[in-house]
């Protein structure tokens, strides 16, 4: 294969407008972008920076309600996409430009087998016959190190794991051997151990076929592994662009520096208070969904004013433990003690005061806040419900809480959740749990759906609140960077069991349980050689596959 390095994509002065409130508003303000064959460009920025919009525009496509302004130029291999008729663009997409979406689970059609969806494009463009194409798919599956490459294609999307699905999607994008692939946050929804498999698979395949790629993400460590060139975007404007190494070593712009500095937040580790009763004590808890056991002999203690991080990959029983503590899922064995007294297993049997003590903050603020209820009522309801406040007292209390979470009461009092940004919604979620005046809060992946800058703000806020109110947190996460910054104690879970637990400083020091070790080494680092080094150490990894049965 010739390693041709000519210019493939040349975007000049790209302006995109979105229609909202009966006006066209410019959302991308004149972006220039040049991509050579075989080159991977990373587009990073927080949400709303226009990353995905630019990614889609590279295919000559805009979402409904958006349009590319006059004067923009998108030249793909000598073809001006802005003036090409829709039908010609259609035949370009899939064949020469492919797109890998963030959620493979949502992008595959659940009613068809993987391989049938894979062969659809080659058949439609008459590039290959069905059997040829299936053969080719299996070969791609093998290259992407999917297990049973000859059979996996004949499964339905729900029969394979998330990481495998994401790789199958990458294989599908490669089906017509496109010149350009656009990866839109392909690993954001995956946990660290799975993310590594997908990243290395994507990198290999892009290398092998000399494919150019645009890699969209908000995770800097990931982009450092994947991209040759990084472009930083902010609110539809380019902040800076340079090759990966110089960008990492020597960022120029203040905004880029702030992105780089995000991971520096670290709270001081609090030691366990001596001879006090733990606030929450989980004792030998077993739990099951129907007949399927999910938790086995889980025990740990949480003391007032401390943060216990519960880590593990998805399906390890972290959230189920939280459900046992809140009483949504009564344990089959064992019990949960609150300040030394056992809590009734079912939340319906608990008293109002017991319910008040333990509050939850959810991962997806979108589904955790009722979109049809005003902020004032979302926060006011728990205050009114538990403390019986009403009238001006209630309003004062809500104002007070809004101040606590650093949102201006006069601006947000009468708004509805859909009018807020992701970070603001998460703050309202925190406010709702604070309104109950709890002593213990369960934070279920509260930052994993947020950009790093916003997530850091939330972590700082949680830390501040903890200091002010002596709150205890149970912090469920799969992100070890978050654990490093906020935890006092760490509980590692796998397959519904506690693998290891102890204070944070001990946990991050060897020796580890082998599983803890795998988790720790899978966290992407800001070093562009990290992935290669890691893969070498592990020996071209097929062993990670065992964690996704």
């Amino acid at each position, binding site marked *: 294969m010739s390693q041709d390095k000519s210019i493939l994509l040349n975007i000049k002065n790209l302006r995109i407008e979105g229609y909202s409130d009966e006006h066209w508003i410019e959302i991308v303000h004149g972006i220039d972008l040049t991509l050579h064959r075989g080159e991977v460009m990373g587009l990073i920025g927080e949400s709303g920076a226009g990353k995905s919009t630019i990614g889609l525009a590279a295919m000559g496509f805009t979402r409904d309600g958006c349009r590319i302004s006059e004067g923009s130029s998108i030249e793909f291999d000598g073809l001006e996409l802005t003036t090409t008729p829709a039908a010609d663009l259609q035949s370009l997409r899939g064949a020469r430009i492919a797109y890998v979406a963030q959620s493979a689970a949502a992008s595959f059609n659940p009613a068809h087998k993987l391989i049938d969806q894979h062969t659809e494009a080659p058949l439609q463009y008459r590039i290959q016959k069905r059997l040829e194409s299936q053969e080719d798919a299996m070969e791609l599956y093998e290259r992407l190190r999917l297990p049973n490459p000859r059979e996996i294609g004949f499964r339905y999307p729900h029969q394979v794991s998330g990481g495998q699905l994401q790789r199958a999607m990458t294989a599908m994008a490669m089906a017509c051997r496109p010149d350009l692939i656009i990866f839109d946050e392909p690993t954001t929804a995956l946990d660290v151990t799975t993310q590594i498999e997908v990243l290395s698979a994507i990198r290999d395949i892009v290398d092998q076929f000399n494919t150019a790629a645009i890699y969209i993400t908000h995770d800097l460590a990931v982009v450092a592994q994947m991209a040759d060139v990084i472009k930083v975007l902010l609110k539809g404007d380019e902040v800076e662009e340079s090759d990966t190494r110089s960008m990492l070593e020597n960022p120029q712009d203040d905004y880029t520096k702030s992105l780089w500095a995000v991971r520096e937040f670290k709270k001081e580790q609090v030691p366990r208070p001596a001879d006090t009763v733990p606030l929450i004590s989980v004792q030998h808890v077993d739990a099951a969904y129907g007949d399927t056991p999910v938790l086995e002999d889980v025990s740990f203690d949480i003391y007032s004013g401390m943060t216990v991080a519960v880590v593990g990959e998805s399906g390890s029983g972290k959230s189920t433990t939280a459900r046992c503590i809140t009483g*949504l899922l009564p344990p089959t064995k064992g019990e949960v003690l609150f300040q030394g007294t056992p809590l009734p297993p079912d939340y319906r049997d608990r008293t109002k005061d017991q319910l008040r003590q333990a509050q*939850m903050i*959810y991962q997806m603020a979108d589904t955790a806040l009722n979109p049809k*209820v005003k902020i004032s009522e979302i926060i006011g309801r728990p205050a009114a*419900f538990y403390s019986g406040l009403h009238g001006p007292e209630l309003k004062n209390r809500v104002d007070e809480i809004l101040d606590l979470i650093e949102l201006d009461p006069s601006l947000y009092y009468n708004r509805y959740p859909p009018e807020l940004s992701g970070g603001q919604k998460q703050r309202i979620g925190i406010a709702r749990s604070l309104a109950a005046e709890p002593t213990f809060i369960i934070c279920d992946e509260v930052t994993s759906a947020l950009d790093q800058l916003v997530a850091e703000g939330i972590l700082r806020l949680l830390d501040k609140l903890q200091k002010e109110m002596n709150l205890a947190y149970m912090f469920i996460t799969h992100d070890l960077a978050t654990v490093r910054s906020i935890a006092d104690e760490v509980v590692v879970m796998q397959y519904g069991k506690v693998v290891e637990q102890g204070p944070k400083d001990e946990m991050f020091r060897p020796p580890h349980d082998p599983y803890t070790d795998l988790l720790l080494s899978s966290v992407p680092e800001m070093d562009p050689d990290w992935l290669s080094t890691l893969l070498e150490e592990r020996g071209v990894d097929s062993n990670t596959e065992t964690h996704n049965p």
Partner: protein
Amino acid sequence: MNYFIIGFYALVIGASTLAAYYQKRTTFILLFSLTLISFVMGIVGGEAMLWSVTILAGLIAFSAGVSYSFREFLIILLPEDLAKEMRTAPLTAGFGLFVIFTYAISGIFAPIIAPYGEAEVISSAFAPADENMLLGADQLGRDMFSRIIYGARNTVGLALLATILAFAMGATAGLYAATKGGKLDQLLGRIVDVIMSIPSLIFSLLLLSIFGTNTVTLIIVIAIIYAPRVFRLARSVGGNVVVMDYIEAAKLRGEGTWYLIRKEILPNSTAPLIAEFGLEFCFVFLLVAGLSFLGLGIQPPTADWGSMVRENATLISFGEITPLIPAGAIALLTVAVNFVVDWMLYRSSGLKE
């Protein structure tokens, strides 16, 4: 060849040429297909046919104009956020709203608008239209126009009440079943299955002949027949809302079922329920009209569109269109409500927000 035919063709061809020149694509296609149709019509049906084409096109243009101006009128009158919704509404929705508005006015102010009482005999049977009677008289010599106006009040009012009752029962039970789940959900679901398995017209005939026909029974019977459909919709919509985290949060707070339904689930289910309300209203309306036509609905001498069709049906054999007027009133309202519902469905299907 007369001036009308020459003028007609000159107008349509000229208009479509202009549209083509100014690159108004949809207008051109519309006008040019009208031209082609008129060529065929002109050859087949001659001048008379061309006249009807002209009248038809004029009628459509007129109702489009009315819908447009009514929509603009609403935009000016309504508060800001509602006006914004109206501005994006299609013309058909404007038309639907206009028709509903007209019916509502004539229903509410029936005694003022109608020149005679609904049961007042003022002339001989089947008297033709004159300056006193806009639409002539019916089989007993009552004024047709007055009865149509009163009919709007009786038929539409009854259908509205029955639909509201059906929704109150169906939605409450459906949301309750969705929230509680388990055995209660099963029990309610099976009851609903039983009611739905009996054809609605037969079932209502049966119930009405058992309990007798008066307005109250009629409303209750219709509500019972239509509540199951609402139950199913409310239960499935509610089922999607119940799994949300905010419901879990509310449950963990210790909130009661009634609070959950009222404050958390209902506000998130209103869009599909309102759309369903429009559709159900049409079905109920047609059922009421159908029952009246069979003689089991609203009883004489109360004016009702369904029974008016039946009472005047003999006139059809004499080539009179009188019995078709109340039928047309029913059809027009059904179409109008559906236009509005379509618009609401489009809005609630996720393009909003």
